[in-house]
């Protein structure tokens, strides 16, 4: 028996066994979401559904208010993600290419944010937001979300900008280009792969954020998807098909983005490491 082949077969058995464990929870969600409660309780999770139905999904969407949560999450994500990445790229340019006083301390100040658990800011931010009349509104999530996205985005973008040769910039300055033109015409286009990765990673982080939403949002009409999903579990607690249908609806966007755009992910993470 060829040793290499045996090794390969054993490797596949191991990888596949693990694959089944890893994918099973997704199947359980689908198998639960697409059948009636009655069918589930009499035949068990692992049986083939008697009928494939979409009533639970409609139920979660309408009665469970998923449509409202979706609207809020989409609006918030569409506004927050591009704004956050642009603001981070603006400050990453000076941090990578200029010389000025307090450059190093400024960079370290932003990096410290990597370690800060959001929990330490929750109560003071609640007080600030209520003074600004932003508590329980989507803009009330927008600003803290931007603040928490900045450290990682600045770290990665500064790393990318540093690798752009100074000669490119010097040539542009000799031609009389302003700092903004250099940023807009040289830095941004060359950092495209990093920006794409950051946009995707930030989309996931924003769509998934739960802790701040839990503290800052109270009314049904402004809840985001994770917060709404949590509330829906309370409302439908033992109606497993509806809870799993809502879960399915909540995770479809992140799964789709992940599967379609995963090549950016790998390069983005890699870029972050190499700094």
């Amino acid at each position, binding site marked *: 028996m060829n040793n290499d082949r045996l090794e390969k077969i054993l490797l*596949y058995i*191991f990888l596949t066994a693990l*694959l089944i*464990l*890893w994918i099973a*929870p997704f199947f*359980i*969600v689908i198998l639960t979401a697409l059948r009636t409660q009655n069918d589930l309780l009499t035949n*068990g*999770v*692992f049986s083939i559904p008697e009928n494939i139905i979409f009533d639970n999904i409609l139920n979660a969407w309408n009665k469970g208010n998923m449509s409202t949560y979706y609207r809020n999450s989409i609006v918030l994500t569409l506004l927050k993600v591009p704004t956050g990445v642009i603001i*981070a790229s*603006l*400050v990453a*340019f000076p941090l990578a290419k*200029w010389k000025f*006083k307090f450059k190093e301390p*400024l*960079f370290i*100040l932003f*990096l*410290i*944010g990597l*370690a*800060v*658990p959001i*929990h*330490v*800011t*929750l*109560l003071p931010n609640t007080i*600030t937001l209520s003074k600004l009349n932003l508590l329980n509104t989507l803009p009330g999530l927008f*600003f*803290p979300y931007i*603040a928490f996205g*900045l450290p990682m985005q*600045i770290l990665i973008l500064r790393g990318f900008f540093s690798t752009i040769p100074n000669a490119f910039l*010097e040539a542009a300055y000799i031609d009389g280009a302003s700092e903004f033109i*250099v940023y807009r015409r040289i830095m941004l286009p060359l950092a495209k792969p990093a920006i794409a990765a950051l946009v995707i990673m930030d989309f996931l982080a924003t769509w*998934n954020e*739960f*802790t701040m939403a839990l503290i800052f949002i109270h009314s049904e009409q402004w809840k985001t*998807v994770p*917060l709404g*999903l*949590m509330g829906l*579990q309370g409302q439908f607690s033992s109606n*497993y098909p509806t*809870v*799993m249908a809502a*879960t399915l609806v*909540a*995770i479809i966007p*992140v799964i789709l*983005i992940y*599967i379609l755009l*995963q090549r950016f992910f*790998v390069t983005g*993470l890699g870029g972050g*490491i190499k700094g």
Partner: protein
Amino acid sequence: MDFKKGNMSLKRLLFILPALLIYLVFMVYPMVRSLIISLHKWDGLSPEMDFIGIKNYIDFFKDPVSYTVLKNNLLLMIVLLIVPVILGLVLAVALNKKLPGRIVYRTIYYSPYVLPMVAVGLIWSWIYDPMFGALNSILKSVGLGQYVQGWLGQPSTAFPAILVTIIWRSVGMPMLLFLAGLQDISPQLYESAEIDGANKFQQFIYITIPQLKQSFAIVISLLIVGSLKQAFGIVYAMTWGGPGRSTQILSVWMYFNTFLYEKAGYGSAIAWIMTIIAMLIIIPYIRIMTKNT
């Protein structure tokens, strides 16, 4: 060259100000304010705060609940540093070979990492459901009916059940980072080792592991900081810290005290204890990142 000069015009400040302002108002200032609150006895609402020095911190270390909380956080950290690191490394090495279908494997192992924590918590709560859950159904169907139990309803199994959930979510992250690290190792290193007569295992110990040093540093710091921050949604959705206080962790306990028990000073002290732990871990990482450039 002009752009290397040290002076800062108003136009140039516009690059820095938006990020700096938002960051100062919603990150730096709240941290300082939270530290001040942690030195007071305060319910979080009334206008008066009583200054009590570090009494909240002393109370934390006197309270027996704190030991359950710290024990759970420590256990979570240790388990995360062992299982996902080893499994992630094994998977990365396996998937670094030119196996057909390896992208499918990689995609699926990493996929739980992109889900919202609350969704992960709800999915696994359903798997662990005492009456109809998948885990008990499997046990019954393979003749292990005597092990059927309410996994999240009893202190002996609730926290281990949460750990399994977090492992399921986390393994893909180290795998992907190790894969990126492996692809940067020069094949020549292995070729010359082969000529010197090193076997596969020796190559792994003396080439692969040392070459992955940077990946290890990042994986370990991300997992440790993640163990402090990210378990919140999972514990919140699965057990709410119960039964009793058996699955309570720092982040959820901080939330309970600050927002449910009206002990804002005490809750802020817990938040600062978390912050100090995270800082101690991340500072070496920051030093590596700043030294590189």
